[in-house]
């Protein structure tokens, strides 16, 4: 069993719903900030409207094969993995600075975060596990949607993937994005979420509050709630406009 991470002061951002370009820009600002100041940051957020986010290397043209999300605005993430329809779900981003034990091993960070979510869901009577089937060969062509893919460390409930994460590593700092599917979306009706599995709905606010408490214990985090500064908001606004809202970034 891995040793518990060292006690770490962690900035906590509980953000109101934002647009796709804004949400992705904020996460990159937080990543860059950690390159400079070595701080850990946890952010929970939602999306102003149902939005499709593509994995960093995912061809934009692949979305033609997913008719249900065709009317959703699209943004490309900095992190890898498959496409996510951000609708009835909760998104998090975690920035872990270079040199922190959780930043070194990719699987450990996935599993530590996902295990804390398993504990949280148990409080709501939902039994979830980590996907462990490492012997199964990955398909040569992965499904378009992240929640239809399987990788070790993904979180399953009732055999259905309900949470997944993806990372970006820059100068030793890790940005980990993750999504928890709270319910079925009209823009991705093939995916059941917690509401369909658990037969009762858990709101993003309730989930966020319960998970934050468990995370503090499991990741040895001491929370310091600190909203974006004016400077960070300005940087994110510029990045959203110049990068994440541009066709040059999204349509590849």
């Amino acid at each position, binding site marked *: 069993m891995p040793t518990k991470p060292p006690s770490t002061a962690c900035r906590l951002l509980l953000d109101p719903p934002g647009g796709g370009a804004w949400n992705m820009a904020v996460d990159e600002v937080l990543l860059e900030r950690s390159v400079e100041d070595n701080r850990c940051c946890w952010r929970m957020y939602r999306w102003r409207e149902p939005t499709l986010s593509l*994995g*960093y*290397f995912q061809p934009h043209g692949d979305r033609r094969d997913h008719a249900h999300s065709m009317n959703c605005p699209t943004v490309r993430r*900095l*992190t*890898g*993995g498959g496409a996510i329809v951000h609708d009835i779900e909760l998104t998090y981003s975690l920035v872990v600075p270079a040199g922190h*034990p959780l930043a*070194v*091993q*990719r*699987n450990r960070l996935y599993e530590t975060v996902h295990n804390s979510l398993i504990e949280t869901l148990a409080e709501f009577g939902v039994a979830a596990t980590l996907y462990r089937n490492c012997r199964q060969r*990955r398909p040569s062509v992965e499904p378009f949607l992240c929640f239809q893919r399987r*990788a070790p460390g993904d979180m399953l409930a009732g055999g259905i993937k309900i949470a*997944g*994460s*993806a*990372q*970006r*590593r*820059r*100068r*030793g700092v890790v940005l980990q994005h993750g999504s928890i599917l709270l319910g079925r979306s009209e823009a991705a009706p093939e995916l059941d979420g917690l509401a369909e599995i658990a037969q009762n709905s858990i709101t993003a606010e309730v989930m966020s509050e319960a998970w934050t408490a468990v995370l503090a214990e499991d990741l040895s985090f001491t929370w310091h709630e600190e909203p974006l500064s004016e400077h960070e908001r300005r940087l994110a606004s510029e990045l959203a406009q110049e990068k994440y809202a541009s066709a040059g970034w999204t349509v590849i």
Partner: protein
Amino acid sequence: MTPEQLLYTKSHEWAYVQDDPSGAKIATVGLSAFALELLTDLVYVDLPEVGRRVSAGEPLGEIESVKAVSDLYSPVDGEVVEVNTALADNLAGLADDPYDAGWFVKIRIADESLLAGLLDYAAYQKQCAEEEH
């Protein structure tokens, strides 16, 4: 080549420095076995084009494993003179041969003095041991 012959960055790229027939110093660059083991299943690599100028410590490409994208950093200042285009079709085998078939790019070194800032094998091993704990 063997790991002991190489120089390393703190971000786990390796460099093997040789003279070309004209006497210019050429660095062959790849990613260490330690880093490849951490990345696990690789799915995509994006490498620079021949002719691109790169700077030590600055990104020269990107590599994606299952759901993780990592920047690749140049160990040296210089110009890319050759790219291992066969790598993209054999990423699954990269971890089996990271120091020969697994090279990424060859760079004509512009400033040899920067090589002194790279780690030798012993120093790199020490860094890896520290990261594992």
